[in-house]
Every structure is written in C-alpha cells, then in structure tokens.
C-alpha cells in the first residue's frame, strides 16, 4: 500500500498539489483572484452638466478629461470642455413702474449682408446698429422691452465656449513632484490663455505634503459692438477696441495625514489682477432723486486692479466605510468683498457597488465697496460703480445628492443633482420713490444635473 502510494506521489504530483491548494483557498471568504491586471495607464473622465437657473440662463456642458501615464513617474492630462449658455441674465438696471427698452448688441455681420428683422425668441427685436464710416461690418443688436415692475433681463444672451487644458506631472524623486500646464478658453467675445507651474514635496513618509503653485493668465475681451466707455450713457453706437486683463496668482498649501482616518489640507492663495475688469454688457441705472424712476443707463466701471486672498481648510475623515468631507474657505479682496464658504459632504457607502453622497454648502458674501443698486441723478458720479448683483451682499445655500456606482477601482458611473438658492436684499434701506416697492435683487434658484462616467484601460 505504501509503495503504491509512493508511486502515485512520484508521478506528477505538482498539478494535484496546485489543485488542492487552489481548492483550499477558493473556499475562503475572500475571493482568490488571478494575478491582477496591471494598473491602468489611461483614465478617462467624462461628464455632461445640465444647468438651469429658474427663469434665467441654462447651460449644457459636456466635458472629457484624459489622464495618460507616460512613464512610471509621469502623467499627461488633457481636458476639453464645451458649453452652451443661453437665456436671460440681469442687465444691472432697476425695474420701473413704466415699461423700458434696452438695446444690446449681440452679433457682428459683414456690411451689406441682407438682414431680415424678426422677433428673436425671448421677446427681443433685432435692430441694426449703423457702423462708423469705413467699417466693413455692422452690428446686430437685440432690442428688449421690459414690462413694468419687472426686473430687467437681457434676453439676447447666448454664449458658446470651448476650453481645453494640457498638463504634465512628473515625479522627480518619490517625494518630490513637479507639474505644469497650459489652458485655453474661447467664447465668441472673450479669450483666455494661461500657464501654471507647481511643485510638491512629501515629508514624514508621505504623511505631510507641502505644495506651491503659480498661475499666469492673460485674457482678451472683444465684446460685440466694441468696448463701451465706462460711466457713459448706454447706446447702440460703435464702441472702443479690445481690452486685456492679466492675472498672476500663487498658492501654498500643506496636506497632512492627521491620523489613520483623517486627512487635512490648509492652503493660502493670493492673486493680483491688472487690466479691464468691467463686464462690457452690464449697466447701472441713474434714477430721479424723488420718484426713483430710471432716467439714464450708464455702462458700469470697476477698478483696473484687484488683489484677492483666500484661506482654505479641507478635512476628509474616513469612518468605517463612509467618508465625511468638511471644508471652509475665507476670502477677501481689495474691492471690499469678503466671503465665507462652508461645504459638507457625507459619502455613505451602501455596499461595494453603490454610494450616496448628500451635500450641503453655505456661502455668504459682503458687497464690493463700489457696488450700488443704482445711482442718483444730480449726485456726482463715483469713480467706480457697478450694479452687478454678483458683487452685492448675498447668501446662498446648495442642497445636493450624488449617486455613485463604482464598477471597479477606476470605473464609475455617477449622477449629481443639486439645487442652489441665492438670496439678496431686494429692498435696501433708503430706496427712493418707486424703488421702495420694487425687488432690486430677485432671488436666484438653479438646478444642476451632472452625469459622469469614468473608465480606464
């Protein structure tokens, strides 16, 4: 018996042993896998954003980002985003008990092009702005009639934007990395180019990371119909040449593994702008000092420089399988704007294949020094004035939830739904005449839907 089994043992026992070992391990709680696939070298992030402000603009924005491993310590990133923004947007003017008419240029066409005047959607009429002598093109403008007691919106608003960025990340040593990139964005009346450079250094066995980055941006603005002269009366005439804006900003930050479950990041950033800061399409009303009726509309004016600073603190805490993220940002600039953002997310990992992440964000902002709801006729014009409500005092809350289905480490389908509610003071103290019964800062509500798909190969 012993001899026979010894023979059996001699004859090719390896296969049987391998099978026995495999059998033992396969019945275990963890699934024994074949050698895993090598880590993917290409990761693609794609998403479509649908954004809708109630009674205002809406946008659809598809986006693709590709991250490609070039060598064992360098990665190339390429991203493209296109968006199409349509819908009415505030002009900056105040409502009136009388109907008002606004003319807003929206397209430049060659001289001599036959134009059929139709009623544009949204209640605007197309008018032709006579070109200056010798010009080869003329401007089509949208003329909007705003009914009484209605907050004036610009219905000629549409924009298509394409933007791309290219980035490079290189690990010099296992603790020191550099990265750089360029970006480009184009709309039909605006172009932006930028370049950035960053470094990061790890300490304490990757428990601490210090990083620093600089970014330089150069923008060119060529509004339809030309650049208006600030604080002059709004008209349909041909306006001034293209303008530029340059920005340089720097960031330093530290990321620290606080303990096994808690990762924190603290960063400080600083930016300096020089150049054309105005929104060429925004106006500010001059109102009668007694009745409060708008008398004239002026193009706004903002300083040609802006210095911004912000401090950002982000925390990620890993509970058993869920993750809590809490971040705070404090911002101020030399336009007098101060703001605070608090953002809370809770990623509830329901099982390996599904998570739900509710999201709460609170934002509060103080007004810029030169923000005015309106100017008063007869009072000397200030040097800077803007009625753009984005520079006013307001609060906003975002409520959202994200659903995610990770199929593997690098593949995920997700859907984010968010509701944004912004409230400002529509009845400022000291409002004159008819303005007391008008809402000078209508609430803004917006819905966002973001569908994303990430995959790797």
């Amino acid at each position: 018996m012993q001899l026979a089994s010894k023979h059996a043992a001699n004859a090719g026992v390896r296969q049987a042993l391998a099978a026995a070992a495999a059998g033992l391990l396969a019945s275990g709680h963890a699934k024994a896998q074949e050698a895993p696939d090598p880590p993917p070298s290409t990761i693609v992030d794609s998403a479509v954003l649908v954004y809708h402000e109630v009674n205002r603009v809406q946008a659809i924005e598809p986006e693709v980002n590709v991250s490609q491993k070039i060598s064992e310590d360098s990665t190339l990133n390429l991203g493209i985003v296109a968006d199409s923004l349509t819908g009415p947007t505030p002009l900056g003017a105040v409502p009136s008990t009388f109907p008002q008419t606004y003319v807003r240029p929206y397209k430049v066409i060659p001289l001599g092009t036959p134009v059929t005047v139709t009623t544009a959607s949204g209640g605007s009429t197309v008018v032709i702005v006579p070109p200056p002598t010798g010009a080869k093109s003329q401007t089509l403008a949208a003329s909007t009639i705003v009914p009484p007691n209605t907050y004036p919106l610009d219905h000629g608003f549409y924009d298509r934007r394409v933007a791309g960025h290219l980035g490079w990340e290189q690990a010099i040593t296992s603790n020191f990395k550099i990265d750089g990139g360029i970006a480009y964005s184009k709309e039909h009346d605006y172009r932006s180019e930028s370049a950035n450079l960053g470094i990061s250094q790890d300490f304490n066995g990757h428990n601490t990371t210090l990083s620093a980055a600089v970014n330089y941006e150069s923008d060119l603005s060529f509004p339809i119909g030309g650049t208006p002269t600030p604080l002059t009366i709004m008209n349909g005439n041909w306006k001034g040449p293209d303008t530029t804006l340059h920005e340089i900003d720097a960031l330093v930050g530290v990321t620290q593994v606080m303990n096994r479950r808690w990762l924190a990041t603290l960063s400080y950033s600083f930016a300096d702008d020089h150049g054309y800061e105005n929104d060429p399409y925004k106006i500010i009303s001059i109102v009668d000092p007694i009745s409060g009726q708008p008398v004239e509309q002026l193009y706004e004016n903002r300083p040609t420089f802006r210095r911004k600073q912000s401090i950002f603190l982000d925390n990620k805490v890993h509970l058993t399988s869920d993750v809590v993220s809490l971040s705070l940002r404090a911002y101020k600039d030399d336009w007098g704007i101060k703001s605070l953002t608090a953002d809370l997310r809770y990623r509830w990992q329901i099982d390996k294949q599904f998570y739900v992440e509710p999201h709460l964000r609170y934002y509060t902002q103080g007004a810029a020094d030169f923000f005015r709801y309106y100017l008063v006729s007869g009072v000397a014009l200030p040097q800077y004035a803007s009625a753009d409500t984005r520079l006013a005092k307001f609060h906003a809350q975002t409520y959202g939830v994200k659903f995610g289905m990770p199929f593997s480490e690098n593949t995920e389908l997700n859907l984010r739904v968010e509701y944004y509610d912004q409230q400002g003071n529509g009845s400022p103290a000291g409002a004159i005449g008819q303005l007391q019964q008008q809402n000078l800062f209508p609430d803004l509500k917006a819905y966002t839907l973001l569908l994303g798909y990430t995959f790797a190969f």
Partner: protein
Amino acid sequence: MVSGHHDHSTHFTAMASPCVVLVDTDHEVLAAEVGEIAKSEALRIEEKFSRYRPSVVTHINDTAGTMVEVDEETADLLDYATQCHTLSGGLIDITSGALRRAWNFSGQGTLPTQAQVQSVLEFVGWARIFWERPRLRLQPGMEIDLGGIGKEYAVDRAVDLAKAHSATPVLVNFGGDLRVSGPRQTGSPWWVAIEDVDRAGAAAGLLELSTGALATSGDTHRYVRDRNVRYGHVLNPNTGWPIAGAPRSVTVHAATCSEAGLLAKLALLRGSGAEAFLKSEQVRAWCVR
C-alpha cells in the same frame, strides 16, 4: 527584505515569526488599512489554530478520542491535509507532531533511542483517525498540528483579503513565507533576499518576484547535532527519524504560498532526491546544501 522607496510597511510578530506587510502606495491611510487587514488575518489564524492557547486545535487535541465537530474553515484545512497526505504518500502528516515527544530540536542534545521513537510512532498516522466532514475523531494520545500548513495558508488568506480591499500592490511575508499580489505599481518586480543558511541576517541571493509566492522549508534554525552530524527537524512520519540527506533549505516559487510550501516540504522529504524531485515536477526552486 529589500524594498522600494514607495513602500509602507507594517511589522508584527505572529506564528512565532517576524512578519511584515509591504504596501506599494503613496496613500498612507490606505497602506495602513491594508497592513492592518493582513495583520488581523495572521493573528486570527494564529489564535484559531494555536497549539498552546485555547483554540480549535487545543480543543481537538485535549479531547482526543471523542468525536468533535469542526467549522467550515477548519474542515477545509483538514480536507487539504488529507489531500496532502495522499499526494505525498503519507510523508506529510499533520498528526506527526507527536514525534516531538521523542525529539528535542534545540540545537544540542542527544538522539532518542529506537525504542523511544517506536513508542511515539503509535500516536502518529493520519490513516488512524476518523475524518468525515465535519466530524473528526483522533485516537487517544494523538494530536494534530496545523503549523506546517497554517503559515502558508495565512499568507494566502492575507493576500486575498488585501486584494479584495484594494488593487494596490502588496507583499505579505510571514517569517520567510511570502506572496505578492502582483508586480509593483510601476510594473517592476519586488526584490526578495534569500537568507544565508549559515549566517543569519546575511543574504545568499536576490530574487525578482512579480507574481506568486515563495516558501522555504529547511533546518536553518532547528536541528539536532550529534557527533558532528546535523539532523534536521523534518521527520519521516513512517519511520520517526529525520530524513536523510535532506538539503539544508529548499525555497520554492509557486502561484500560492500553500502550494509553494507543500512543494518545499515534499522536496525536503525526498532527502537526497530533493533536487531531482523539483526538476521532474518542473518547479522553480533553490536548494541549499
């Protein structure tokens, strides 16, 4: 152990061996988690199959002679032990621990007499026990020892659990029995030093490991020296005596640590025929004599 500069390591002691778990990642939190998972699994298996502390095995050994019902995992290991026993022609036998009563492998001491060995042999032999899953009954005086297959099993289980938790490359090394989840993040292999059998702490060679496991069997640390003859601690369960002409150590590379460990033991049990056995089975292995 030679490792790359990205690795996070978790060190601990289990199964009477120094253990280390290397995780190739920059994410500290993830690396600590994976290390913890492997460590917990090693300690769990050590505790569950310990021969000294109250455990499944001590319960079986203390109640030898009575019928015992075992859990799924223990049953799997006993089935595996049965297969090993058959495939090795009886040379691998988890009841052979009783032979310890005649031998003392502390490095010095005397050989037992034939009579002493003979009397102990009565309590050895997997063929003598009753095993019908899930029920086991040993003969009185017999004992089982899963130490011979437990460490490699723990390495395999730890790697499987680590892989289930994350795709980050990991190397689990429990006292020289080790396995990798795959190549390192960059695709390059792990570097493993093979310890010199005569100089502890010195490397006799350097291996590149991209997949699979390594297990080493041998007498590097446990032996009896008598009249300048070194008797290794691997005993033939049929005779009760150490295998003659066995290599000082055999290191085998296979897909899993369990398989590697088995092949290493089988080679060692072949004594002077160790190399021939490994060659005929086409096993990637290294013998030191």
